[in-house]
């Protein structure tokens, strides 16, 4: 969806607001990979909270499918509206290069959050967790639950998503090192589609009756796998982990189909994004470690210009009820 969060009194349009320093209300715009997806909806929620607290105007809008050129249209439109900063959860690491140049030319900050671009001209990347931490966490959980050996399947969303592929890479790296007896099946792709994930997982289970574990790389894959395992009557026999949105995996965690799922707190990611971009707009230097209200200590890597939210969050029976998104 789109949400325009105006702070009280922030009536002035971005273009019209003068340069009277601290009083200036900045406009920060963000284009997610796609709208209508709970994960990004949560980010938006966190960002709105930050916008209210920090006195920023926040624009959230984007395409309804994770499409590169649609995303570019939104970014281009926002640049034309002369916002102060525009950012994306990038659908492509390179496709926006031209627009990043255009933003720079108009003195508009270009940032990324959740999923990065390769262009060095982007001002900031707000990272949820390192790819390595996420990949390793999934590998460790599955290795432990299957007892270090047997067949493990991987289901991902799309073959071109950079962050998903990076995670798969680290899963493989970690398993090769820690649990070499685990046999990984070919990665299959089901899109961001839960129903398709269920169908494909069912059939993978059929094709590999001795399968021991499953990893869902994208938030739509994990509940799909869980449903397939449940329907195959193999609850408890096949271990599942992966990236999971709490409301998607909650019923399965409660039913014992999934023991642990991994994510970070997207609301906090949204909050941190607004906070970080605002610091840059105000010209405040980010430190190696920053104190962010409501989040705590946050690391900043000046070399890669990236802010790191923290270690991944692991959901299980104990804590799942604390989250509702």
């Amino acid at each position, binding site marked *: 969806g789109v949400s325009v969060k105006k702070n009280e009194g922030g009536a002035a349009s971005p273009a019209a607001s003068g340069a009277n320093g601290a009083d200036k209300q900045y406009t920060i715009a963000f284009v997610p990979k796609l709208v209508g997806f709970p994960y990004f909806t949560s980010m938006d929620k966190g960002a709105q909270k930050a916008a209210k607290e920090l006195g920023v105007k926040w624009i959230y809008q984007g395409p309804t499918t994770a499409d590169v050129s649609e995303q570019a249209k939104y970014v281009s439109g926002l640049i034309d509206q002369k916002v102060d900063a525009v950012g994306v959860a990038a659908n492509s690491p390179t496709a926006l290069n031209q627009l990043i140049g255009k933003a720079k030319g108009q003195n508009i900050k270009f940032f990324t959050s959740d999923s990065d671009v390769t262009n060095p001209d982007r001002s900031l990347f707000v990272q949820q967790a390192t790819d390595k931490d996420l990949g390793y966490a999934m590998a460790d959980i599955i290795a432990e639950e299957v007892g270090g050996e047997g067949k493990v399947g991987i289901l991902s969303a799309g073959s071109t998503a950079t962050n998903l592929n990076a995670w798969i890479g680290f899963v493989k790296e970690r398993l090769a090192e820690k649990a070499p007896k685990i046999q990984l099946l070919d990665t299959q792709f089901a899109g961001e589609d839960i*129903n398709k994930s269920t169908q*494909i997982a069912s*059939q993978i289970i059929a*094709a590999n009756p001795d399968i021991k574990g499953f990893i869902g790389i994208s938030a739509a894959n994990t509940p799909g796998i869980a*449903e397939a395992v449940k*329907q195959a009557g193999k609850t408890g026999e096949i271990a599942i982990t992966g990236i999971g949105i709490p*409301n998607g995996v909650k019923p399965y965690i409660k039913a014992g189909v999934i023991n642990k799922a991994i994510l970070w707190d997207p609301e906090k990611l949204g909050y941190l994004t607004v906070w970080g971009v605002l610091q840059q707009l105000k010209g405040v230097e980010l430190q190696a470690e920053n104190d962010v209200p409501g989040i705590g200590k946050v690391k900043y890597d000046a070399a890669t210009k990236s802010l790191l939210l923290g270690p991944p969050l692991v959901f299980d029976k104990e804590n799942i009820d604390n989250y509702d998104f």
Partner: protein
Amino acid sequence: MSQTTAATRSGSMESLKHSFLMKYEFILFVLIALIVLFLSITTDGNFWNQGNLSSVLVSVSIVSIAAVGATLVIITSGIDISAGSVLGLTATVVALGGQHGLPLWLIIVSALATGCIAGFINGYLIAVHKVPAIIVTLGTLSIWRSAVFMLLGGSWGTDIPMEFSEWFIMTKLAGVPLIFWLVIVLVLVSGYMMNNRKWGRYIYALGNNEEATVFAGLPTKRLLVFIYVIAGLLVAVSALVSLGQSPIVQSSSGQGFELSVIAAVVIGGASISGGRGSIMGAFLGAILVELVRNAVILLHIQPFWTGVVMGVMIIIAVLVSLSRDKGGAN
């Protein structure tokens, strides 16, 4: 056996035994048998694995239920490309109902009503205002998909009653999910009615020559609206079953479903220009489509090949049925 088919196509009785469509359906049947045989051999019996078989049969059921309605629509020379969006909308209604704690019966009634209303709107515009079906359903495809986005408000619908899964998918008769048996009954009964009841023949007549049905004083408009309502209702039933298979609703739920349904109907021998088609054919078409999907996974083929196989299959199906037609004409 042979009677049903011929009547379907040409409606005549005498040629029943030697009818071409019978032969066409027989071709489909043989093709299915061959694929099954092939999969049995090449997959170490994994194809016959209880889980795999159930999953395929449930998928077949979901497509077939909607395909029964789509067959009627296509026989009248219409088309319904809004089916995927209607499926998404119905699923959303169920999820919202669950979220607000409505009783199960009310959820089901609302879901079916959603399908009927969507069907009615299509049918009304098509029958009464004479807007071409592809335009109307292109419009409603777009509108209902937007409605799904708005109703879900960016989150997933997760409060799906467990009963759908229990009833349709977990309950098995002779090792086969209950829903598949129900679908077989649906196909046989509706196929029989299309050939032997007055209304069934009216539907064929309508697809052959709408103007003539008006001149003949048949209730053309009402019949057309009725067909679209039935089609919508059946899509809603498909939605319930698909929620049994996968109890989460996304904003993209159902996208592309219409293509599977149309593919099944067309591979089943229906003519897109109306006047012919058979429900049994559509059912066999659905089986074929899902078997191809399954084969791609079981044989570890690159999933892109599904698209090629499906595309080629659709075109060949029509070529075959056209060439038989020609044979029939002379």
